[in-house]
């Protein structure tokens, strides 16, 4: 196993909350944010990290930090940044300006992920987002000006007020932008979110499937190939950091509510801000036995178009995957759910949206 791990750093602050978000987040407050960055530094130091494979600043909204705080954050990660490192930062267009972008570029950020979600006014109002195509175009031009050209846009489908027409419009506007990568997410309604409290319901399975198929075909025509259930990229622009997750490789998770996978152990940090600032990081830890590791390996790899690497599986677990599940594999292959060769086993393209069904058939 390679010893370099990914590094994920969570910045929980937001200047406003999106109506669907159940991630670990806090309303931005200058004093808390400064306090938080110091705690972050302490947690990061505690791992004695040597070299990292990728760096990802996620949130929350990392761009919600003030300029001096952002500077502090980049100072904290500076020891890990090197030439050629894939360094992504999540941003909202609402709180990016040229000064911050210049700082990001100077600090090594070479990939930006923009939370776009939709372009429809009615939809943006219900999810409590405030931007438009023009603003997004301006931000992207600025990013390009500072040579940050690897840009992801997020899109959400299954939103209230959305139908096939508005989804088509959203896709059309999204693909008019110079994006290298697009992530699309089916809206899930989770407890403790505004949409949940407003009693908004998730769309039914058949409609979700219709939307998903539309998205996959639309993006394919525009040159974005699906490489994971919800992720699409132009050739050569797959997210290196996220591939670490799906290839079941290890990563540090640093910050409030962050999760990591280090030395065969998966952990999740507390979401309690005050505990975190008192250096009580861990909420839970899961020590994985071989069986758990295999389970994760399969569950994650089948999310990818590349599927499960059978040779890697053999090397890692000293077991032949096909032999172990032969009976089920043959049945699922007969039913056209999966396909396999000497090299890999994958879920067939048309079955990505029923991946969990396939997984249950395969593993249980």
């Amino acid at each position: 196993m390679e010893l370099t791990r990914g590094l994920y750093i969570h910045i929980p602050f937001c200047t406003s909350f999106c109506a669907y978000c159940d991630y670990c987040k806090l309303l931005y407050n200058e004093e808390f944010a400064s306090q938080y960055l110091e705690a972050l530094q302490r947690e990061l130091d505690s791992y004695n990290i040597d070299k990292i494979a990728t760096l990802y600043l996620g949130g929350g909204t990392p761009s919600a930090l003030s300029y001096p705080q952002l500077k502090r954050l980049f100072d904290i990660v500076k020891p890990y940044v090197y030439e050629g490192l894939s360094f992504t930062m999540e941003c909202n267009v609402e709180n990016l300006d040229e000064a911050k972008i210049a700082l990001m570029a100077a600090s090594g950020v070479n990939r930006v992920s923009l939370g776009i979600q939709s372009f429809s006014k009615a939809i943006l109002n219900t999810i409590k987002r405030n931007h438009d195509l023009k603003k997004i175009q301006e931000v992207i031009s600025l990013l390009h000006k500072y040579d940050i050209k690897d840009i992801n846009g997020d899109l959400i489908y299954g939103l209230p007020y959305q139908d096939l027409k508005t989804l088509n419009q959203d896709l059309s506007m999204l693909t008019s932008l110079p994006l290298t990568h697009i992530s699309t997410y089916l809206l899930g309604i989770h407890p403790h979110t505004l949409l949940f409290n407003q009693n908004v319901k998730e769309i039914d399975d058949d409609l979700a499937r219709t939307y998903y198929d539309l998205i996959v075909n639309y993006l394919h025509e525009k040159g974005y190939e699906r490489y994971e259930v919800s992720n699409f990229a132009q050739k050569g622009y797959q997210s290196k950091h996220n591939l670490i997750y799906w290839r079941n490789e290890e990563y540090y998770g640093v910050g409030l509510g962050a999760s990591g996978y280090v030395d065969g152990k998966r952990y999740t940090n507390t979401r309690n801000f005050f505990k975190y600032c008192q250096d009580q990081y861990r909420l839970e830890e899961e020590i994985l036995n071989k069986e758990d590791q295999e389970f994760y390996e399969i569950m994650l790899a089948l999310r990818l178009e590349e599927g499960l690497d059978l040779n890697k599986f053999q090397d890692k677990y000293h077991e032949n995957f096909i032999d172990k599940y032969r009976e089920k594999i043959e049945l699922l292959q007969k039913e056209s759910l999966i396909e396999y060769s000497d090299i890999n086993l994958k879920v067939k393209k048309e079955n990505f949206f029923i991946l969990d069904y396939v997984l249950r058939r395969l593993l249980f």
Partner: protein
Amino acid sequence: MDYDLKHIRNFSIIAHIDHGKSTLADRLLELTGTVSKREMKEQLLDSMDLERERGITIKLNAVSLNYHSKNGEDYLFNLIDTPGHVDFTYEVSRSLAACEGALLVVDATQGVEAQTLANVYLAIENDLEVIPLINKVDLPSADIERTRREIEDNIGLPFDERLQISAKTGYQVENVLEAIVEYVPCPKGKEENPLQALIFDSFYDSYRGVVAQIVIKEGYLEVGDTIIFMSNGEEYLVTELGIRTPKDVKVNRLDVGEVGYVAAQIKEIDKVRCGDTITSTKKKAMQPLAGYRKMNPMVYCGLYPCDSNKYLDLKEALMKLSLNDASLHFEPETSSALGFGFRCGFLGLLHMDVVEERLEREYGIDLILTAPSVIYHVYLNDGTMIELDNPSKLPDMTLIKEIQEPFVEAKIMTPKDYIGPIMKLSQEKRGIYIDMEYLDPTRVVLTYQLPLSEIVYNFFDKLKSYTKGYASFDYQLSDYRASRLCKLDIMLNGNVIDALSSIVFRDFAYSRGRLLVEKLKNIIPRQQFEVPVQAAISNKIIARSDIKAVRKDVLAKCYGGDISRKKKLLEKQKEGKKRMKAIGTVEVPQEAFMAILSVQDED
């Protein structure tokens, strides 16, 4: 301490559910110092988790108490607990056979109920002295006068004024102890007679083998004796004797009149039958004791392990359960849909429920039960008769002359306000009105003849909801009658699923078929391909509904923190899947096999 016969009292407590039997037992244990307040946990005799949770007594249980009477003498009381529910009449009859007296607990807020009467008659049949108590006199809604009148007028038992008690607070409970001394006769056996001991319960212990609970009716028994089971002649050397206080206390000898347990390294559990008589090789009895009334199962269902590898475990578990539940019948059967399992007979639905839960909890076996069925008498054209306990085995209709189904005579006791709804319900359930009798100006006993199959479904639940729980209900089998019946088959993907077949009244068949396919469509999860669900009578399709193909089943977002959550979710689904049965490629959840019961709620 040794007691002569004159100082031994063997008694049980009979009561309707919730009238306070287990609470009274707790108080008696406490007052006699058998169990200190500190050791006391609620409802001590209800030792099964299931019993404590549901607040009912299922299995009988025996305990010995020492009591120092106000007359200055010491007594040994053996309290043998009885279940209160109608399904467990057999258990009641077993415990009564071991006693000379019974305390009848009547709730002062409820009065005498139909089922109380059934158990009282059983006690009187067994020549027991019945002592009525009025319980819960501390409650504001207690009507002591009315309850007392009911006891004296409806049962015909004299009531001792001192026995107005509250088992909960302990009020006047010491009078109960005195009444036991005074009214319950002492055992009548003789020490010098050959040993006759009645087995009234038994259980299996992996160290001691079968442990039988016994009452010594004649003679005595010592450790080292060789005993003989009179029903099969099997001989065993007694390795341990004891009494329960309620902890097991070893003794060297059980004397005439005493209640205790015997262990003899008996590993073959089918050798020990409740109701059998034990005698000794030292002085062999010529005759066994009269057994007790044997109850026949009224309700049958198929019982299958979800995991077909657990078949032998299930068999073992059923054998162990039947060891102290002689009313549980089972024999192997196979189903093309469910594989190898057992057809089991139960006394009623609660009994079925309890057995299912015990198998799942105590033996860790996930089960699939098919919908319960009664026994039909199927008369063929050639004059032969088949007793049919499995609907899927019904011969072709062209071979059948007629089908008869069991009818019961049901007595429903109710406040008069609910007469209308009960009559409506009974009519819907094909009931035949027989009689209506006023017990007093407010309460009525309605008598109906009803097909047992309708009762097996949800009559009792409906009765409760129609009468806000005020009505009580008891029934006994009356006869078999020809009915217009047919077999309703269910097909998945065009294949008849034998475990889903049922026998239904012809006039109900169409609506039931339609409701059932709709219900199954909703219960069975979507599969890769569309699956038609069809209902058929005599190969003719009467209803169809399609389970659509799965279109979306994926977690869209899966990054850092989502990963562990996703695994947990899948593991939970794995647990759920254990309770599913794969029929062909269709995954059918456990509750689908019971769907026919809930369908009838809607028609």
